[in-house]
């Protein structure tokens, strides 16, 4: 009775998992960046682990059904089979290589941003995001965490390069189809830059600059969330990301006041 029941539950588990996955109801949000390769990695991993999940659970279901104790049944005695063990290890290793190989390849891309990328600084603090764009000189001015005492973004106002920088407190405007390097800073505690549609994610750590890169490939508005617990209002630390055509982006950027105009020396 217990054996039949357990076998049924395990089979239902497998069917439920497969149906749920195939239905697509619980799948990634529509991709809006260049990181299709990450999605592919998730699919490869899902296929390899999915096969293992289905096969192992069905074997377990078969075992509890077939070998449940019944009158006159005796267990067999065998305790080793080196060839079988070796083959199972080989199959497992193969499955792992299929996932790990391409995974490391994609990761290598992930940590090597392209040369021509637009560099934008994102600053996290409890509990909001700020964004800094380089001005016409294409360079971001110097910052120092000690300067947070002087201005909200810790920027060195005496640095000539900083003068034409643009600071906004949201939303984050991005041009379509141009690689973006996000340089992350934090003013206080850990935060994490996370836009589900972009797939990429990186922590902001006070005292250092971290970075990630992606290329927006879809226009529209997306939610920017904080993915690293940062205190009471962590769940409300949100902003919007607006991806627009390069022309619209340039027009928007030109219309913003520069650091020289907004921050007193």
């Amino acid at each position, binding site marked *: 009775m217990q054996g039949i029941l357990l076998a049924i539950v395990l089979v239902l588990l497998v069917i439920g998992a497969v149906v749920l996955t195939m239905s697509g109801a619980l799948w990634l949000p529509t991709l809006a960046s260049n990181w299709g390769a990450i999605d592919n990695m998730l699919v490869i991993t899902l296929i390899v682990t999915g096969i293992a999940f289905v096969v192992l659970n069905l074997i377990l279901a078969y075992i509890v059904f077939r070998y449940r104790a019944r009158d006159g049944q005796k267990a067999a005695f065998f305790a080793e089979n080196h060839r079988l*063990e070796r083959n199972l290890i080989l199959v497992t290793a193969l499955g792992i290589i299929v996932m790990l190989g391409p995974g490391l390849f994609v990761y290598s891309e992930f940590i090597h941003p392209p040369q021509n990328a637009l560099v934008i600084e994102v600053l996290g603090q409890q509990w909001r995001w700020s964004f800094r764009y380089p001005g016409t000189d294409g360079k971001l001015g110097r910052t120092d965490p000690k300067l947070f005492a002087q201005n909200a973004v810790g920027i060195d106002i005496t640095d000539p390069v900083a003068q034409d920088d643009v600071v906004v407190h949201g939303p984050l405007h991005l041009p379509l189809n141009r690689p973006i390097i996000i340089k992350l800073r934090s003013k206080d505690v850990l935060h994490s830059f996370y836009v589900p549609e972009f797939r990429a994610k990186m922590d902001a750590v006070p005292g250092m600059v971290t970075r990630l890169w992606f290329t927006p490939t879809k226009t529209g508005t997306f939610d920017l969330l904080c993915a690293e617990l940062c205190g009471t209002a962590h769940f409300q630390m949100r902003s919007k990301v607006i991806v627009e055509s390069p022309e619209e982006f340039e027009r928007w950027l030109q219309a913003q006041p520069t650091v020289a105009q907004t921050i007193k020396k």
Partner: protein
Amino acid sequence: MPHAASHTTEEHHEPTGFWSRYIFSQDHKVIAIQYTITALVVGFVGLFLSWLMRLQLGFPGEFNFINPNNYLQFMTQHGMIMVVYLLTAILLGGFGNYLIPLMIGTRDMAFPFLNMLSYWIYLVSVILLLAAFFVPGGPTGAGWTLYPPQSVLPNASPGADWGIRLLILSLAVFVASGTMGGLNYVTTVLQLRTRGMTLMRMPLSVWGIFIASILALLAFPALFVGGVMLLLDSLFGTSFFIPVVNVLGQQLGREGGNPILFQHLFWYFGHPEVYIVILPAMGIVSDLLSTHARKPIFGYKAMVISIAAIAAIGFIVWAHHMFVSGMNPYFGFWFAIATVIIAIPSAVKTYNWLLTLWKGNLHLNTPMLFALGFVSTFIIGGLTGLFLGNVIADVPLHDTYFVTGHFHLVMGVSAIFGIFGGLYHWFPKAVGRMYSEALGKLHFWVTFVGSYLIFFPMFGEGFLGLPRRYFSFKGIESFSPIIHDLNVFITIVALAVGAAQLLFVFNLIWGAWKGRKAEANPWRATTLEWQTPTTPPPHGNWGAQLPVVHRWPYDYSLPDAPQDYIPQTTSQRS
């Protein structure tokens, strides 16, 4: 004293008073039960906290006493309680204490006094832990990972003053207790095995606990060191982990610390900690499967080697918890490779469990059902780990509900299934009475099906992008409405599964009080603990003569044998 006349010199003198027998006892069996009861009680606190979290997630806004602050405090305490004060304590302090001396055939631990001290110090750590609910500001809400700066900077997170300090103190005391226990378990296994009990004749339960104890001795010091520095950062304004920061408009006079350093220290402990919990559970499950399937464990040697391999590799994978922490990105390559390599010994164990069951004669009683439940939840828990270990696949899923689902199934549910199975299995020996099989099965079914219904949908939530440690998802437009329905569903199941744990408590209490008298060896098992002269075993365990071991622990269903099991004490010829 029935066998006073045959006392041998090595036998302990049996204490006679109530206090020395049941309270300040040095008997490993009493200490084991003390550990078990304490851990279960504190575990129920952890369970209750998870209910509060689920109420908020399922019915946001309905329960006004839950706010963003205490939500984080419930979450942090839930995590810490379950991982350290329940799972670690019950598996090493509870099962380790009960099983090691009985399974290797000795009268007690190598250092019985230290053993007693270990329990009482553990109790102090539990009291310190729970005391945090009653100090100004309440317990810390920085997450069980305690990441600085938010965990220690004033106003940066709830409980950032007294809450965090009490917790660190409690952890330091726990480490002291765990060290006393761990030294004892390792020494006892190495020094006090009875005649014939070679290392390769030890049951896998002992192997799991033995290796986990070594892990604990090597891993906990990292937590201790990290904790001490964190405490200094909190109490005296030092800057081990705090760089120049500006909290809520205030520039703090800190400089030169690195928050990521703490993460390395924490996970250097935190990852082996996962194996400290899961290796004993694996060992227990192996023994349960073999006994109740009436079949020898398949590939015993491979099982032992896998335990050791998982433990060894487990020390060089810690930064896979930190793939997007901002550490040097090149670390990702190494930690991904090492991490997925662990999948091989883990897979070997899973295959060998299935092959142990293959062509067996499965007695599907409560301990066996929980052991089978472990195998199933470990499969899904382990496989989902391959997403998170493979660095680039971790990036989108990191800090989402996918992670929550993964670690709950692989180290929460699996470990607790090993514990439930073990408690039912050894209950007749420890108490001398039987629990109710019907209630036990009901407990299993609700918990098994419920656990899947709670945690499986979380994988989907993670794919949808739902971040973990969120008080509420209101106002995030990109999340489809399905998430709300899922959260309601998960909450209802979680409440039911939580309530079903009362069946377990009732069953144990009723069984110990009114249960049918247990036979000495109700499962017809081979290992030494079932061959004691009386049940429960007396002080000193073995009466006059220590048992002598003649064979490995898995002689089930030997062809041509009169019974389907041969105890380890039976000589090869007979």
